[in-house]
Structure formats: C-alpha cells, structure tokens
C-alpha cells in the first residue's frame, strides 16, 4: 500500500516488506561493516547493529565520528569496503548496481546540504521522487501541493532554491524526502536551519511517519530534538565505531539548558 497525504499527514502504511511481501523485523542489518575512502584509514569500523522495522533512531556523535558516512551506507550512496549490509531483507553490499534504484526509492534522504536542484522550482524538487517512481502529473499535483503547504511553502511552490532562505530550502528538502512515504527515512541534521517551531513540526512529521511504519534515522546534535522523542533509540558513533554496542544509552539525555 502506498501513502497518500491528507492535510500534510501520511494516512496509510504497512511498514517495510521484503521483495516477497513478508513483513520485515529488521530494515537494516550491519555485520562487521567497515568503510574507508581510497587508501586512507577506515572512517567506519566494525559496525554491528540492526535497525528494527518501524524504529526511530537518533545517530549522534562528535563531528568527524562518521555519522554522514554511516548514513551514506544506509541510503546506498556508498558500498562498505568490508562486512555485509542487508536492507529490506536483501544483501546489498555487493548487489549489482542495476538493482539499487528500486531500493533507493524506498529510502527518503534529507541531506545536510539539502541537495536541491537549483534550476527546478520547489514544486518540481518535491515532485521529483514521485516522477522518478513513474507517477503521472495528475498523481503528483495534489500530494506535492499539500506537502508544500504543510511545510509552510505553499506560496513558494514556483520559487527556485537560490531564492529561498536556508530554512525554506531545508523544508523543501524534507518535503522531497518524505513525499513518497519511504520505508526508511534518513536525515542528516534536518533541523539545522529551521526555527524551533518548524523543528517541532518536522519532528512531528517524522514521528507521524514513524507511527505509520517508516523507520526513521536522524543524525543530529540537537539534544532538544532527541529529548522530544521519548521512544527513540540512540546510536552513538565515536571514531568510526558504535560507542554503545550494548545499547545502554537507550534513554535520551536531558536537553542542555536553553536548548531548543
């Protein structure tokens, strides 16, 4: 069942399923995964963890710990140099590249640098995943308008990214990531450029998607965001390795005073 949007909210989901239609218990499984760029040292090492289907995860850690590299592995922009990664029940570490697009369509990504196409309008940027998936213009129009309205950009639909503020660009990026109601949503610092109110709305959107079955992974330094999501689990990275392999850091830390 695919998503439909009503009032900016996803209204239907049945969670991630394998190619055979079987409901998955794990969306992602990392076994002894390592990653190095070129001949340099490993930026990620010995990653062993599972992401449960329908889970909400925060990925934290200091700058340079490897969060973005780990997200790249999750959204199939990078292959591991060792170990095995299973996504949606399929071993994808060495899968032929022709098979990857069908999995990428099940993953929504909010990039740290937004990655909006500059010469396309906000509408076209948000509509891109639907069009790539083969939706007709009639199928695209309604959901994209609603999505833009929900992120507060209904009147900026025809604006191009260079004319949008950083926060507006980020909202377009988020709208694009969730428009297809992905099985897995990966977000890299999604609230870095938005105000506190919009951050809460975006978190609400992520939570709504999560309640309906989307597995959400958010890389963030925003302690407020983490504390506002009580059921979420933490994955802390340090020096390219999961710092809490026992899973004892399940309870999010309290926000720093004054943090939004």
């Amino acid at each position: 069942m695919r998503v439909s949007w009503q009032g900016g909210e996803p209204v239907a989901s049945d969670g991630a399923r394998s190619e055979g239609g079987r409901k998955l218990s794990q969306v992602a499984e990392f076994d002894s995964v390592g990653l190095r760029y070129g001949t340099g040292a490993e930026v990620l090492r010995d990653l062993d963890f599972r992401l449960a289907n329908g889970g909400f995860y925060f990925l934290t850690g200091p700058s340079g710990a490897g969060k973005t590299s780990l997200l790249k592995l999750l959204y199939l922009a990078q292959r591991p140099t060792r170990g095995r990664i299973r996504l949606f029940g399929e071993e994808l570490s060495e899968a032929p590249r022709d098979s990857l697009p069908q999995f990428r369509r099940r993953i929504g990504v909010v990039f740290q640098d937004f990655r909006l196409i500059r010469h396309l309008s906000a509408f076209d940027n948000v509509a891109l995943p639907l069009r790539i998936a083969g939706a007709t213009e009639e199928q695209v129009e309604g959901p994209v308008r609603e999505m833009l309205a929900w992120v507060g950009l209904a009147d900026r639909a025809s604006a191009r990214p260079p004319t949008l503020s950083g926060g507006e660009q980020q909202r377009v990026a988020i709208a694009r990531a969730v428009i297809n109601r992905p099985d897995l949503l990966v977000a890299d610092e999604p609230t870095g450029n938005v105000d506190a109110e919009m951050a809460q709305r975006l978190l609400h959107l992520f939570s709504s998607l999560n309640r309906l079955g989307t597995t959400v992974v958010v890389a963030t330094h925003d302690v407020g965001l983490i504390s506002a999501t009580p059921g979420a689990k933490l994955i802390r990275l340090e020096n390219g390795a999961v710092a809490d392999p026992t899973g004892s850091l399940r309870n999010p830390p309290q926000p720093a005073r004054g943090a939004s």
Partner: protein
Amino acid sequence: MFAWLFASPSEARLLGDARLRGPTAWVIAIMSFSIVVIAAAGLALATTAGTLGEAIQARYSVEAPGGGSDVGTLLAAVRTAPGVITAQAVSETEMRRTLERWLGPAAQSPDLPVPALINFDVADGAKLQAIQARVQTVAPAATVTSHREAVGPLLHSLRVLQWVAFGLVLLLSAAASAAVVLAARGALDTHRFTIEVMHGIGATDEQVTNLFQRKIAIDAFVGSVAGALAAAAVLLLLSAGAAFAGELTGGATLSGLDLLILALLPLALTALATWVARQAVLATLRKAL
C-alpha cells in the same frame, strides 16, 4: 521504442533550457554539411564511373592515319566485320573541336593532320583479330584500340576518388561521433549534481540516459538537417552553374537513389549521434554507484 523522444515538460525541465546553446548542434551541422557535399561528390563519381565503365566495356576505335578520304569505305568495312553491332565515324570537325581544347586555334589549321576515326561496339565473344584483319584490308595502317584500355586509368582514378569520398564520409562520421561523446561527457559534467540527486532518489541509468539522449538527439537532428539543407543549397548552386564535375566527368548526375541516400544522411547522422551519446552516457554512469 521511441517513447524516450517525447519528454514531458517536467522531464524537459530537469536538464534546464540549454538546447542549442552548446556547440553540439553547430558541430554536427558543419559535419553534416561536409558529409552531404562529399557524399554527393562520391555518388556522382560512382554514377559517372559506372556509366563510363558500361559505355566503354565493348567499345573500340579504328584510327586510320592520313585522314578521311576513305572514311566511308573504312566505315563499311567495320560495319560488316563479324561481331560488330554498331559503328559511327567521328567527323573531322568534331575531332578538331576536341583538339582545340589543347591546341587552341592551331587545331583548325589545315596543316594539322587529323586521322580518320571510327568508334564501334562489338557483341560478346567477338574476335578482335578478325575485325582488325577486315579493317586492314581497306586501310593497312589502321589500328584498333580498346576504349577500356585507353580510358582505364581515368576510370580507375574515378573509382579511387569515389572510395576516397566514401572514406571521408566515414571519417567525418567518426569525427562527429567523437564530438558527440565529448558533448555528452560535457553535459554529464554540467549536470553531475542533478544526476547524483536523481540517482540518490532512485532514478535508473535508463531514466537519466533518456534525458541526455533526448537532448542530444534533438540537437543532432536540428544540426544535421540544417547542415544538409546548406549542403543542398550549395549543390544546387554548383549544378546550376554546370560546374559540378560537369566538364571533368562528362556531366555527372545524381540518380533518384543517390538523392534518397543524401536525404537519409542527416537522419543517419542523427541516429548515429544519438546512439553514440547513449553509449557514452551509460558508460559514464556505470562508473558511479
């Protein structure tokens, strides 16, 4: 099969509105112009060589020194020789007019001896020795020469030039292909970010390739048709002035089939450019994850 040619407005927007701004259409127009002109020359040479080859295949000449007082007798002897199908005497006036091209007014001088000349065609299996013997009974000094041997070097040159022209067409096509590869790679570099985003969202190589293939196909079509039209105008001007190989080859012409081939060349160039662009784009995309 050709669905990729028809882009929706949203697909067209993905690569921006850069059509005809780049050099691809212009390069292909120049290549198309050159290819059509050279191909026309090659086809005209081929037609001329074919016509000439057929004409001289069974044609011979009898040349009797000393002129034409006995041309009638000689002509009768040739016509009655075994195996001769037709025979015609070349008038002295015509020969002097021909010689005038090289000798100028001196060709008309009565002091210049002009031999009697008779052209004749023979049937298959005719025995040249028997014809020569018959001729020499009325003109002992007469010699029989084969047009095939006399014109052979010219015919050979025409054939060589014809193949040189076709070789040039292939070379220009290869050069056009190389230009398209460079243009495709340039376009990929220009739109690398868009491609990365599309791939990240789940676009297949086929979807990305179709965008570039469509753009290059349109540029190639516009360029090759424009180049071919310019070439057609030039060829028409040349033929109107009877300069197009006229004097050299005896009035080379293009047959209906030749014109059809020339008309199809821009389409063939478009198809080649599109195919080459597709392969170049696919090869580049496969290097990325």
